[in-house]
């Protein structure tokens, strides 16, 4: 469904070089964390393979903590930077969650930005976390963890407080993480032959908002529940517009709603062309009924 009640992401405008602002939807924090975890798991697996191979190849190389941290540093950053460059702003984790890194100014994503945003992640999260690992091995005291924890919390605060959901790396690199769009072109509801005719007066009642709610209802799937909803709405519309032309029952309700949608849209479009926006059913708050409106004209 294209429903209005669906998860509403934060939307922003991105100015293209062509001068047309595009609507973009910011990635949700949960999605970014999930993508991050997926990517880090993959990269860590890669680092483990490298360490094991290294240990097997040369018996002298012991996987001490600093060596392990360094190898995982190389593999992790190599992983992120490689994919974000080769896959144009996505990584396996980001693809899984449908996310994408773009340039905040609407230009091409630069290699320098990709490297900067990933190395900053190192300073935001991994270095403080690893400093804790380095200082005390596996036995931590609160005093050792606290500075790193405060640092990571401050970085998280930057992310949550920034208006466009930018982590420090995005701020510095001039990037933005968006939810990749994937809508398909659906059928035009105004298509098809008109069976029911409406008078001008019957189309005075509703505005754009109601029209779009009706659109959502019509685009919903076909099941018993939605059929019941549609016939209920059809009855309510008939009551409101004073439908007296002919009695409609059962299966015809669907056709009636579609025809009403088409007629209402045609009416509102022609109004719009004449410069009169009708946002919703309260567009003429002062005017109670279409009849009264006519009299004043």
């Amino acid at each position, binding site marked *: 469904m294209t429903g209005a009640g669906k998860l509403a992401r934060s939307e922003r405008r991105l100015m293209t070089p062509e001068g047309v602002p*595009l609507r973009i939807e910011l990635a949700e924090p949960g999605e970014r964390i999930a993508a991050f975890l997926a990517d880090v798991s993959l990269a860590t697996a890669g680092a483990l393979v490298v360490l094991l191979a290294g240990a097997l190849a040369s018996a002298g190389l012991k996987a001490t903590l600093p060596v392990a*941290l*360094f190898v995982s540093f190389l593999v992790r950053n190599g992983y992120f930077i490689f994919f974000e460059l080769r896959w144009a702003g996505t990584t396996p984790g980001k693809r899984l969650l449908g996310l994408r890194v773009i340039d905040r100014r609407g230009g091409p*994503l630069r290699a320098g930005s990709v490297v900067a945003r990933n190395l900053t992640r190192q300073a935001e999260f991994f270095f403080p976390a690893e400093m804790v690992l380095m200082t005390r091995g596996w036995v931590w005291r609160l005093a050792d963890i606290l500075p790193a924890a405060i640092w990571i919390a401050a970085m998280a605060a930057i992310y949550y407080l920034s208006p466009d959901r930018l982590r420090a790396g995005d701020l*510095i690199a*001039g990037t933005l993480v968006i939810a990749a769009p994937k809508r398909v*072109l659906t059928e035009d509801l105004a298509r098809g032959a008109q069976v029911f005719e409406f008078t001008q007066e019957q189309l005075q009642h509703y505005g754009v908002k109601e029209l779009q709610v009706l659109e959502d209802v019509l685009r919903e799937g076909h099941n018993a529940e939605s059929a019941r909803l549609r016939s209920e709405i059809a009855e309510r519309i008939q009551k409101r517009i004073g439908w007296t032309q002919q009695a409609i029952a059962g299966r015809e309700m669907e056709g009636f709603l579609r025809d009403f949608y088409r007629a209402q849209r045609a009416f509102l479009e022609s109004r719009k062309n004449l410069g009169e926006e009708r946002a919703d059913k309260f567009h003429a708050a002062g005017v109670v009924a279409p009849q009264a409106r006519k009299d004043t004209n």
Partner: protein
Amino acid sequence: MALTLKSQEFRREREAGWLELEALVAQAQQRGLKSLPTDALRRFPLLYRSALSSLSVARSIALDRALLAYLEDLSLRAFVALYARPVAIGAAIREFLARSLPRAVRSISVHVWIALAALAVGAISGFVLVNADEGWYPVIVPAGLAGGRGPGSTREELRKVLFAQTHSGSSLLAFANALFSNNTLVSLLAFGLGILGGIPTLLLTFANGLMVGAFLALHAHRGLGRDFTGWLLIHGVTELGAIVIFAAAGMRLGELVLFPGPYSRTDALAVHGGAIGETAVGGVLMLLAAAVLEGVFREAVASTDQRLTIAFATFLFWTLYFCLVGRR
């Protein structure tokens, strides 16, 4: 009402173009822009622009919400396919090293000079203070970093540290240890604290200089001034250079936060911030180089003369690189 809707007509006229663009975008996303035949490649930008114009029209006339949402998405997808292209990694690295990095550093040369000055003033002050009274030493150098070296140390003890062979087994281990040392943390802090307006960055750089000066005075008192200089500068030129670079980037960050000009703060960072990120990446490379010099070369090269030669060579290298490479 037999008339066709304006929006319906609009859609019928342009639908084919949208669907064609959608197919091209899907192919470009799966197999890359290069996989498109020449003819399609030529049509891509045209279709993209006509989709943008459809979007502009739809925004003003269409009451069909699904159509508008589709056009918004299609335009964004085509935009991403056109502008967020896969980057050839080798070419990107060459471009970065041969042009972007030295240019980025030169673009914030004022900040580099300020950071250098803070470091130098710190070093001189540290030297002067400890030279006059070694009682200052424990005040300036935290016990954790002194590594047991202090006013109580004899000449022999200090000498032993300067020419010690601790990591003779594994050079990778020595490298990793050097990388995760205090200076990495100082560099990153100097950079990160820049966001607070640049003053903490300056203080941190100054404090780091103080420590260098204090160490130097301690060794100079025991006739080891030259040996210590060799021990420090063989990697120190690169490592202190990295600190200066990070501090300069941090100060620029602070400047943009304090004085974003005609932009909002985040926009100012997006517009002018490229040089900051690139400089910081350069700083990371310098830290890696410093770790190699400290972990591997300092142990292998035990003579002070040779250490000083390497130090001078690295100094010459970084100076020439940042001053001359990539000039237009």
